């Protein structure tokens, strides 16, 4: 279940004279930039409540856009290796109302965290592969969290990351988790999880 919150206007100024940057430019550039992977999904699906679309409607009421145009715009137009005809062909597949929509909460995509870990006082590179995991709550609704799906590093085997000792800590650590918006914060809160000790509860089902 989601609660929809409309984008609100937010503006403040400590000292308003002698502006170095034009607030209008700052606002527009920010409003039209893709903010997060969720924002990308919402734009791809042409969700009308997407803040960027609301901004366009409020400021450019005559501007018309459809899903094909928006999907086309999501590609990096500055990347010369991308063929505009192929992008156009791809975007055309999503013109109809019944066309596939992508959902942040659904499985089928993952996130890779490039990490530095300290082992015996030496820093080593390590990749964590993260997936969104669903949890059935007592209320009957479904909650979501980020979980570690796999660990990749030349010096570690995936099975090694789950020791037998971990099983005793499952319930003790069950209140600690990576909340479903952690990705928007660049998984900043993963440090807290590691400080508290790694257990099975952080791994995807």
């Amino acid at each position, binding site marked *: *279940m*989601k*609660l*929809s*919150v*409309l*984008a*609100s*206007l*937010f*503006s*403040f*100024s*400590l*000292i*308003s*004279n*002698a*502006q*170095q*940057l034009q*607030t209008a430019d*700052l*606002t527009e*550039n*920010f*409003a039209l930039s893709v*903010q*997060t992977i*969720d*924002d990308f999904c919402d734009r791809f699906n042409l969700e009308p*409540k997407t*803040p960027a679309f609301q*901004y366009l409607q409020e400021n450019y009421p005559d501007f018309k856009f459809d899903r094909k145009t928006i999907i086309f715009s999501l590609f990096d137009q500055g990347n010369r290796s991308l063929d505009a005809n192929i992008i156009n062909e791809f975007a055309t597949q999503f013109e109809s109302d019944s066309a596939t929509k992508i959902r942040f*909460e659904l499985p089928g995509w993952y996130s890779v965290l490039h990490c530095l870990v300290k082992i015996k006082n030496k820093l080593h590179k390590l990749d964590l592969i993260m997936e969104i995991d669903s*949890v059935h*709550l007592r*209320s009957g*609704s*479904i*909650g*979501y*969290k980020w979980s570690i799906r796999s660990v990749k590093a030349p010096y570690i085997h995936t099975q090694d990351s789950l020791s037998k000792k971990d099983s005793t800590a499952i319930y003790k650590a069950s*209140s600690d*988790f990576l*909340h*479903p*918006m952690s990705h*928007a*914060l*660049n998984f*900043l*809160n993963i440090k807290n999880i590691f400080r508290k000790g790694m257990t099975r509860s952080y791994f995807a089902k």
Partner: protein
Amino acid sequence: MMNYEKVVIEAAAFTYVRSFVQGPDGNYYGIARFRQSFTGYRENKPLYSDVTTKTVAVVLKPYQKAIEGESIELWDVFLGDISVQSIDKGK
């Protein structure tokens, strides 16, 4: 730390707020993102400026409260971690 005679902080008049998603603890998690420009002045000349994009986690905690015998669901709103996504230096 640099001392400025005057600072100007402007935020974009647009805040990106993501729909809230429920976590495994029953609370709802969302984010708000905004862009902020900073300019520091000394002797009326801009000495330093940057544009920073910040993201803040917002947590909604539902709770029940009995008012005149009727149970009503209310919400506490908390701000969580703040992440700096990018800093573009002007000078």
